[in-house]
């Protein structure tokens, strides 16, 4: 894991003091409310429906036990005893008081953490693959790039007053777990024909009101040219991005309205004027950062563990957990485990202070003191010895963290929705809970197989519903909450936006509609096809038909009840 040096340490400390001063200047009237707002947002402080919310950066989703214990302490001291992991690999506290925020930031700085640019019209927390350094299909570990970008984007003198927020994701693997095609900039580490490592640069993807798949504007960017090239992209966006309408201000609209080829030409023209060597990171510095992500001291072990094989044979629950939540590790004898924050009936992504402490102990003892946050609001223990899995499972179970449903229909992403958010038009957490209850039977979940459901409580799409295999969008219609259902969305290298099945439905009908969609899938499924593979083959039509039948049956029931 990256560790702060004296410069990083001083930078974060000074940033805390700077924010403390900004709060004081707001209180004494030097700053107006309008002026203070973007300053507090750039420090992750939102005003929500009921209270302030503080969003803490978890750079590329990597944390250690000391940091998690500090988060537990903050949750207990300044919040209601829990935190909420988000779809941006961050952590949110929903109930801090404004006066406490500078103190919370000090506590974060004590463990090399901050809230810099977790909100506001600037470059946000850089996200990455939760299996970075673990996956077998990796060209190169994406974390050194993500850390370099964290530093480069922090308080950038030119790019903190952008037309709109700006999100960058990096992956180093063939299979895209970082959703790079639906980010403002997506970077994919790759090798060219000569065997050199560089980046494929994708610009202009995004979700929100106008979902778009990003365009490849550079097939291959030599690795050492990254910062200068990104400076060119950012300068074009900062200069030319729309500022007349916040709903058309993201770079995806600029790319769309300018045209992919013209946008590429603008970037390349700007890039040609830059003096790369004065901007790019020195090779020494790139190596210095990369050294922090060197593999941990693995033991030399056989490919598979007999201990684990025997334990799985004896314990069907453990066996299911490993089958569902295990991820193949590139090092023999090790495994990565997804820890789903998705107990049936729980709030997706929530974690209590007690769970944080228990999990910190597990990560410290069994995973080289490191864990990851995923954009599915789950956690990952990246480097577990297969021999240790039975003990890890027992410890997770004791902490209420052993849900064997990673990637299944009950592993649902949901935004905070109307329970917390000032922008929401509908509830999303209770919808996730009602679906999870409807499909609670583990055997049934396994029979259905991988089926990521994503729920957003408004058009801004924080729950990423556009790229859910099943997507649910909550809107307000005639004073009632109304839910639109889509199928076929995909955030991976097969990136696709979901297609709507029909008219919106009431909250109480959502679990039934999901049942109808699942029934259609099971009827259409060929061989071992997953849900998304079936939709990709059949298109949305059979699902629309099944959905229409469900709506008719509901209407018939309703009119019968009225008679």
């Amino acid at each position, binding site marked *: 894991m990256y560790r702060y040096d004296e410069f990083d340490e001083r930078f974060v400390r000074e940033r805390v003091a700077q924010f403390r001063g900004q709060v004081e200047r707001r209180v004494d009237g*030097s700053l107006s409310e309008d002026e203070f707002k973007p300053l507090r947002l750039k420090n992750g402080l939102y005003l929500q429906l009921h209270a302030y919310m503080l969003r803490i950066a978890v750079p590329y989703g990597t944390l250690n036990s000391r940091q998690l214990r500090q988060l537990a302490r903050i949750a207990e001291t300044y919040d209601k005893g829990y935190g909420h992991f988000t779809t941006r690999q961050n952590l949110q506290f929903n109930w801090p008081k404004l006066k406490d925020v500078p103190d919370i930031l000090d506590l974060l700085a004590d463990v090399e953490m901050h809230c810099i640019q977790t909100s506001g019209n600037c470059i946000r927390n850089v996200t990455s693959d939760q299996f970075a350094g673990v996956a077998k299909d990796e060209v190169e570990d994406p974390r050194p790039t993500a850390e370099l970008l964290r530093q480069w984007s922090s308080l950038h003198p030119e790019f903190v007053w952008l037309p709109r927020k700006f999100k960058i994701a990096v992956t180093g693997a063939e299979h895209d777990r970082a959703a790079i095609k639906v980010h403002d900039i997506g970077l994919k580490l790759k090798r060219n024909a000569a065997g050199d490592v560089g980046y494929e640069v994708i610009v202009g993807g995004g979700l929100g009101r106008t979902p778009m798949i990003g365009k490849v504007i550079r097939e291959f960017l030599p690795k050492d040219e990254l910062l200068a090239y990104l400076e060119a992209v950012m300068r074009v966006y900062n200069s030319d991005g729309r500022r007349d309408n916040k709903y058309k201000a993201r770079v995806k609209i600029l790319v769309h309205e300018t045209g992919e080829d013209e946008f590429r030409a603008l970037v390349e023209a700007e890039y040609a004027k830059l003096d790369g060597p004065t901007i790019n990171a020195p090779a020494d510095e790139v190596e210095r950062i990369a050294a922090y992500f060197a593999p941990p001291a693995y033991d030399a072990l056989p490919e598979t563990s007999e201990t684990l094989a025997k334990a799985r044979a004896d314990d069907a629950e453990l066996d299911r957990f490993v089958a569902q939540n295990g991820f193949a590790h590139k090092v023999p004898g090790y495994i990565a485990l997804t820890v789903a924050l998705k107990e049936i009936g729980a709030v997706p992504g929530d974690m209590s202070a007690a769970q944080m402490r228990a999990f910190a102990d597990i990560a410290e003892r069994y995973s080289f003191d490191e864990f990851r946050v995923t954009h599915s609001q789950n956690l990952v223990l990246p480097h577990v010895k297969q021999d240790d899995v039975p003990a890890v499972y027992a410890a997770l179970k004791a902490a209420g963290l052993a849900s064997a449903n990673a990637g299944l229909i009950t592993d649902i992403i949901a935004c905070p929705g109307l329970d917390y958010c000032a922008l929401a038009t509908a509830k999303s957490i209770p919808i996730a809970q009602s679906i999870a209850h409807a499909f609670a039977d583990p055997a049934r979940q396994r029979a259905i197989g991988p089926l990521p459901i994503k729920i957003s409580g408004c058009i801004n799409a924080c729950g990423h519903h556009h790229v859910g295999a099943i997507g649910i969008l909550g809107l307000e219609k005639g004073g009632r909450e109304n839910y639109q259902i889509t199928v076929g969305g995909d955030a991976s290298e097969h990136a696709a936006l979901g297609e709507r099945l029909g008219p919106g439905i009431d909250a109480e009908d959502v679990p039934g509609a999901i049942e109808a969609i699942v029934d259609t899938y099971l009827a259409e499924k060929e061989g071992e096809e997953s849900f998304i593979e079936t939709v990709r083959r059949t298109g949305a039509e059979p699902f629309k038909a099944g959905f229409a039948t469900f709506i008719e049956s509901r209407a018939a029931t309703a009119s019968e009840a009225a008679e």
Partner: protein
Amino acid sequence: MTLITKTGAADDRFTRFDTLEDALATDEPVLIPLAFAPAYVEQRPGAEFGISVPGSAAIEDVAPHLETAALVAVEFPSFADGRGFSLARKIVREGFAGTLRASGPLIADQFLDALACGFTEVELPETMANRQPAQQWLSAKETMSDHYQSGYGTEPSILQKRLAARKGASV
């Protein structure tokens, strides 16, 4: 209007004019919209003048005047409109060595960034200067000792300092 440089409040030697006739009628240094520059230079060759350009201006429109103008004032319609920062970078890249002014309702918290992007002074509306006097600007400038981005400001970036420290250590 109040003028703030990195050493504090300063007097403005330039007077703004909205019409070419008025600008031509004075011998003092004038600050005029970009569109008047060709006519002004033709009629007052050698006179000291500045041009006012919106943050949204294209560098291609500004560049032809950078050799003759002593001052360029980049207008910020709002403190949250960051286009002026990028325009400043492009103006500096063209080799402009005169006074580069950020003009508009900026806040003290942006002073460090404005200087790092190449601005040499900020011109504030009086209402802003009353709430955020020069002292706040000078203080804001000192809040952060370092920056990560190479190529911005006059000091080396953190990345460059680390490199220098390592080289120093290995000698």
